[in-house]
């Protein structure tokens, strides 16, 4: 956990590269999208992010938490084939 001051999410995103960001959302725009928040964690390790959120929930954190990777959506050299089909 590094910083505790609400700031524009765009500004937070500009400061980091190739890291997961964990942000507590404090403000939304008129369409409901998050625009301001408190940076709680930045890490390259997705598992660390997961455990941090679980810990926060255990401590009673009920706010909106945003996890967002800032950087390429897959590591260099990887390709992605998504899609799933099911009948429920």
């Amino acid at each position: 956990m590094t910083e505790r001051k609400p700031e524009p999410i765009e500004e937070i995103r500009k400061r980091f590269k190739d890291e997961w960001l964990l942000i507590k959302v404090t403000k939304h725009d008129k369409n409901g999208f998050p625009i301001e928040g408190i940076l709680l964690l930045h890490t390259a390790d997705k598992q660390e992010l997961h455990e941090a959120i679980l810990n926060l929930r255990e401590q009673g954190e009920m706010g909106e938490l945003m996890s967002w990777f800032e950087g390429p959506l897959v590591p260099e050299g990887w390709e992605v084939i998504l899609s799933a089909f099911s009948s429920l």
Partner: protein
Amino acid sequence: MPSVRFDPKATFVRVPARVVGPKGVEWLGLALDTGSSRTVISEHVALRIGFNLLTAHSVRIATASGIVEARVVTLRQIFALGETADEFQVLVLPLPAQLRSDGLLGMDFLRRRNLFCNFGKGILLTLPFARNFLHRCQLVTHLFAAL
């Protein structure tokens, strides 16, 4: 009208989505996937927002690489691309760590509105279905202004 910016050069289109479970609210990046019939969230996210995957029922799903089993949970609410859906069923799958996204926004959600994509500028815009001719004209105005 809500529009979303995305990186047109990225491997896939990622959009922010808010998911509400029994014990929490999270904003995630979901991959927009018109090839997926269902919306998917990762196992990690499902656990974090309060679902018990041991008691959730499972379904078999076909993927490009074979048949796998997925859990099914019902989100209290999902919001993405300006659209909100309550009591929305999603699949839960273990997603690889290399995928820097926490799920897929599939056709079951996307078909709730019209979706317009400008790959040149990296803008996604969703609009409600037109109710009548006048409404259609209003929507077209929004469409040209946004894209």
